């Protein structure tokens, strides 16, 4: 099966928007992906027909909302092939999922002198919560470095993992470099040292089929808004054995069994970790987004996006003074780059004038920029609704910017 690009582009209304009178070229998919009408329609339908607080009502609407939200949990479970649906915890997003684990797992398992291992190419949301935990517990944060191609130096793992290492947190795909990390290999090695692993899949669930059981991942986190779903919803997958032992992180309604002023007993999984009224309409939207990508097929999506990446990479390399950051052998469909002599913000601003949306700056991964001794990059990230024609527009845009600068500098 191949992608029926015209049909798909009709599903995303925003793609036919005009920006400063020009056709939008949206290449900021790694930050937030666009949402198809199949998702927005379902959410609208729930708002207009079934909206009601879940898990507590006796009435029809509440049951409908509850059913929608719990079906969404099962969709997520199947999507990542979790063994149980109660291993799927809904959160606000990747960031909140990591914070939940850092706080709750950290409370349970980490004490003074213990070590937490992250990689040098993590998003800040997979660094800062661990750093805060380490400060609280007087534990030590260690870092697995990457080489100049942007590939993790796995040969360093044996010396970095010690008998004090309590958890390893690493991304599947780097949002700043595009590197696809060999997480199965990493998990296997960590497990051979009895170290559990958290996978930040924020940049990978939308590109690659994930099977948490085959990977044997202990925790896996991602966001709805990068998976063609709504904002404000994310997932924490955790193995039952950990989630059962971990204490609740936030207290409130829903997460309790019995409350007296002397003592509260907690609800069972997954509700123990879902205090308060959840973003159930977004949960339902996320379920619809999963249905949408599964109907196209992640393998079909991945193959097409790889084609876009190869096409773009070749064209990029032909541009004089172009430097691509992140040249790993296994990469996902994004290109982080700088043209010598042109500041990333200037490049981004001028591309914006042409209706081309890219991301500029550190991409919330300052250590990656530090590694290369730069302040930031321009990042173009492609989704399955993008086309080679749009990449041509980007290339022409970059060349135009180079010309504008060429005439003025040197």
């Amino acid at each position: 099966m191949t992608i029926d690009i015209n049909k798909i582009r009709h599903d995303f209304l925003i793609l036919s928007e005009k920006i400063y009178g020009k056709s939008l070229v949206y290449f900021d998919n790694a930050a937030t992906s666009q949402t198809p009408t199949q998702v927005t329609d379902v959410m609208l339908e729930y708002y207009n027909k079934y909206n009601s607080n879940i898990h507590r009502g006796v009435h029809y609407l509440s049951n409908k909302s509850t059913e929608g939200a719990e079906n969404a949990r099962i969709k997520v479970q199947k999507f990542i092939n979790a063994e149980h649906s109660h291993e799927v915890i809904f959160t606000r997003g990747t960031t909140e999922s990591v914070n939940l684990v850092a706080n709750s797992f950290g409370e349970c398992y980490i004490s003074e002198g213990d070590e937490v291992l992250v990689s040098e190419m993590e998003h800040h949301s997979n660094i800062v919560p661990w750093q805060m935990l380490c400060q609280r517990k007087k534990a030590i944060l260690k870092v697995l470095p990457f080489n100049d191609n942007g590939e993790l130096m796995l040969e360093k793992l044996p010396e970095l993992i010690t008998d004090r290492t309590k958890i390893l947190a690493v991304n599947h795909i780097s949002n700043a470099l595009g590197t696809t990390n060999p997480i199965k290999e990493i998990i296997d090695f960590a497990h051979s040292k009895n170290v559990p692993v958290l996978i930040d899949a924020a940049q990978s669930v939308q590109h690659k089929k994930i099977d948490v059981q085959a990977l044997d991942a202990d925790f896996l986190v991602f966001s709805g808004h990068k998976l063609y779903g709504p904002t404000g919803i994310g997932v924490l997958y955790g193995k039952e054995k950990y989630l059962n032992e971990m204490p609740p992180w936030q207290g409130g309604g829903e997460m309790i069994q019995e409350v007296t002023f002397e003592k509260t007993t907690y609800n069972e999984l997954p509700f123990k970790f879902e205090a308060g009224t959840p973003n159930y309409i977004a949960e339902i939207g996320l379920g619809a987004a999963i249905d949408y990508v599964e109907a196209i097929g992640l393998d079909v999506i991945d193959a097409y996006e790889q084609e876009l990446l190869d096409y773009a990479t070749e064209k990029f390399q032909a541009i004089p003074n172009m430097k691509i950051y992140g040249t790993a052998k296994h990469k996902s469909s994004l290109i982080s780059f700088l043209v010598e002599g042109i500041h990333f913000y200037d490049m981004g601003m001028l591309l914006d004038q042409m209706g081309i949306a890219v991301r500029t700056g550190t991409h919330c991964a300052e250590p990656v920029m530090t590694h290369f001794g730069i302040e930031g990059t321009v990042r173009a990230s492609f989704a399955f609704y993008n086309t080679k024609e749009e990449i041509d527009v980007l290339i022409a845009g970059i060349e135009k910017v180079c010309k504008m600068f060429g005439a003025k500098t040197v």
Partner: protein
Amino acid sequence: MTIKEIQEEIIEEFVGFDDWMDKYAYLIELGTDLSGLESQYQTDQNLIKGCQSKVWFNAKLEDGVVKIEADSDAIIVKGIAALLIRVFNNQTPEAIMNADLHFIDEIGLKQHLSPTRSNGLVAMVKQIKMYGLAFNQKMNN
């Protein structure tokens, strides 16, 4: 010239640009030509750190008028800074304090000075105004 007159002059210049490319090419030219700040002044103290680009900014009071210098690592930001300098440099603290900055809007660069842009320019304008206020107080003491 007064701050108002300089702004009118800039607006006049920009009317001549037919499309965005000419406008930005001009900003690039202004940015390239602005001598900027010598590295000794590119200190952390003078740095306004937006997360997208850096602006260094220095102001002093000399013979009753404010002398302003600025620099940026992004050329277009530096070009816009050059326009701000043209408007505010050699003006009295009082004039700066009371200035109504409208040219940015009229030459279609408003987006770059909106508070949601983290390029340092918004903070730069704020700083210039603050200096106007502070120098004005100093002169009246």
